[in-house]
């Protein structure tokens, strides 16, 4: 199957590690130009080094709306209109009810949700994106399942999926598609750190019959959703959960 991503231009957030890095590498191998973003300069430099000439790194704090706007503007100026956006940046949170706070929610929502809203707002401008473009965001089965002490994270991912459904309708006139990928446990540095903490405190983990997914599996699914072979998939969430939701 030819994904036909050659010379197309994509913005990828959270590209300094995990799923964001793997997606950047998959798209670069397919011949796309990928503008990779992360707040971590070291991780981003490693991804750029692995991805070669097709990867263009920009260190940015996605919670800074002005910076996000500038990055989108600069990217279009340098590489032309975008063919898509992939939002992989995110933070995790383990907090029981008695320590939940408005500030805590704001921190998680800023990175996991509001930054995506701002990115889509900037990217979706007619002067910034081609008709027929595709937007993909990392969600989680936490969007539809409950977990002890994961309220902030679950709420942020549920918000992302609700936003995806609304945007699918708003952007459909321009044939711009938007979807999310609902992962369960993916073997990323973030997940491994969380697993270690769960083991230390005796909290439960994901329990998927097929076990955890590898980052490349998620990256391949993202590439599929970005490609022209899926012109009518929009406003939905693709599960990659090893059967955790069955």
């Amino acid at each position: 199957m030819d994904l036909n991503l050659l010379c197309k231009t994509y913005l990828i957030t959270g590209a300094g590690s995990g799923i964001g890095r793997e997606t950047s590498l998959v798209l670069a191998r397919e011949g796309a130009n990928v503008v990779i973003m992360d707040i971590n300069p070291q991780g981003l430099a490693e991804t750029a080094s692995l991805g070669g000439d097709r990867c263009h790194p920009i260190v940015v704090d996605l919670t800074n709306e002005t910076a996000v706007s500038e990055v989108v503007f600069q990217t279009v100026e340098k590489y032309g209109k975008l063919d898509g956006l992939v939002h992989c940046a995110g933070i995790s949170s383990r907090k029981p009810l008695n320590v939940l706070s408005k500030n805590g929610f704001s921190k998680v929502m800023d990175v996991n949700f509001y930054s995506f809203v701002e990115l889509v707002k900037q990217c979706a401008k007619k002067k910034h994106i081609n008709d027929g473009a595709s937007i993909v965001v990392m969600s989680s089965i936490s969007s539809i399942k409950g977990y002890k002490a994961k309220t902030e994270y679950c709420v942020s991912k549920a918000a992302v999926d609700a936003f995806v459904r609304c945007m699918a309708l708003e952007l459909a006139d321009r044939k711009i598609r938007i979807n999310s990928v609902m992962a369960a446990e993916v073997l990323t540095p973030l997940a491994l750190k969380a697993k270690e903490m769960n083991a230390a405190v005796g909290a439960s983990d994901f329990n998927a019959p097929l076990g955890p997914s590898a980052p490349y599996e998620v990256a391949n699914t993202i590439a599929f959703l970005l490609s022209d072979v899926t012109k009518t998939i929009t406003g939905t969430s693709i599960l990659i959960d090893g059967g955790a939701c069955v």
Partner: protein
Amino acid sequence: MTLEEKIALLEDMLELDGGSLKPETELCNIDEYDSMAKLSLIVLMDDECGKKLTGEQIREFKTVQDILDFMD
């Protein structure tokens, strides 16, 4: 933060009556000190003491005194 304030903070987190905890109290004898309480403790240490608590450090806590020492 005084010793009394620290103990009161832990009692509040565990929803225990005031005076329930002593420095020498063994954590394994506190029913309320479960996995959720340990996650709350991580947040509490960060918010109240500006200290990051690791999984390894939590495993090493045996008594209330160990937590009080970490809060210093």
